[in-house]
């Protein structure tokens, strides 16, 4: 039984390899809820919040690389927000200042909640996720990492090292519906990325399916409607159609937080609002 504050990625990987029952601990904001309520009794823990290879972010070859232990508070920083605005906006809506000072990107990915707020921006940006173990390094897309509600494909000896996203030429939006402004788990979210260079629109939806989904029909349809040489706010019927196609991509359920009908409605409203904003 031990708690080790790891000092390098190599140390994390070898501790996991030596004892695959070891739990990784980053910000603790999902882990400790389970421990405090006796839903989890860890036998040994590796603390990864200070591992240099996992902290901070950097620009690299036209992409931004985010360490898995990067916190929400760090994602909110204006310098980071300038490169990945949708993720910064999503981070800004998470929990409370206290939660944002501790909670990390890697924890949100590993927890794989359908309501994880970083997931729609990462889906919209076609993020690539780098996973390490003593056996080597592999890179996967979000849909290969998160395969169901709270289900990830990490092996017991693996750790998420980093996430890379492209720096996109164009505005981005993240919108979230919940019962209040602070400390709220999403009822529905949308992340929209406008890519002027590639003349494309990416739209991802959160909390309205077992895993984050891309509204590909809405994306393809709107890319053909926008006048890319002189983009302007679309007419009302275009916005409405975009909202309908977005809602059709969702597969929501009724639960204690909301109903499927309301979630579909919220997706339609947020999708049209996000589109109007990025084109204004």
């Amino acid at each position, binding site marked *: 039984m031990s*708690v080790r504050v790891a000092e390098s990625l190599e140390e994390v990987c070898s501790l996991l390899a030596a004892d695959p029952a070891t739990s990784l601990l980053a910000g603790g904001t999902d882990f400790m809820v389970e421990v405090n309520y006796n839903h989890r009794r860890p036998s040994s823990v590796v*603390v990864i919040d200070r591992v240099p290879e996992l902290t901070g972010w950097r620009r690299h070859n036209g992409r931004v690389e985010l360490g898995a232990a990067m916190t929400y508070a760090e994602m909110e920083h204006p310098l980071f927000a300038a490169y990945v605005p949708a993720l910064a906006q999503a981070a800004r809506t998470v*929990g409370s200042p*206290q939660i944002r000072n501790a909670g990390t990107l890697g924890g949100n990915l590993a927890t794989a909640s359908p309501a994880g707020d970083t997931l729609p921006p990462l889906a919209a940006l076609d993020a690539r996720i780098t996973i390490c173990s003593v056996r080597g390094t592999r890179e996967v897309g979000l849909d290969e990492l998160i395969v169901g509600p709270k289900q990830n494909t990490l092996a017991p000896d693996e750790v998420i090292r980093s996430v890379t996203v492209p720096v996109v030429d164009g505005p981005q939006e993240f919108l979230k519906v919940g019962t209040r402004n602070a*400390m709220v788990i999403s009822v529905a979210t949308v992340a929209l990325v406008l890519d002027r260079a590639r003349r494309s629109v990416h739209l991802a939806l959160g909390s309205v399916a077992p895993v984050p989904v891309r509204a590909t029909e809405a994306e393809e349809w709107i890319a053909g409607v926008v006048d890319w040489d002189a983009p302007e706010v679309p007419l009302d019927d275009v916005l409405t159609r975009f909202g309908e196609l977005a809602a059709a991509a969702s597969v929501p359920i009724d639960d204690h937080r909301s109903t499927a009908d309301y979630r579909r409605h919220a997706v339609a409203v947020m999708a049209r609002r996000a589109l109007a904003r990025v084109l204004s």
Partner: protein
Amino acid sequence: MSEDRSVAGEATLHYTLHVNGSDRDVADAWLGESLLYVLRERLGLPGTKNACDQGECGSCTVLADGLPVCSCMMLAAAAVGRDIVTVEGLGDDGELTDVQQAFVDHGAVQCGFCTPGLIVAADHLLSVNPEPTELEIREAISGNLCRCTGYGRVIAAIAGVAEERAASTG
């Protein structure tokens, strides 16, 4: 949670935390104990409160390396090497800080359960943002639930400290 959470026969941990400027030994601890539990039950620092044990209420707010966090969401043994400040560590020798005095003067303390967490959050806000707007004050305390005051007096107390500090430094 105040019951002993270790199970007979389970190995225990021994580590040192840095709290309010001193090194504090923690012995015979169960691995899964939160910082909140250790502060209250092992280190005799009951100022930090426990109302939810799940990060929702902010009554357990402490500073870790200068940032407000929920001590119930921090594994105590993972806080080794961090500089922890609790509400007890904000003032000198039992004197009230200006933030604490303002809470008293403005009637921002009713049952008082949320107060230590709010004081830590407010103290931090004013240290990084000496002249916060009302919106910034609301944002800074958005992770602290108060069931008594309705927040108006809390916000007035924090705004009052900012004004007084600005006036006294000219």
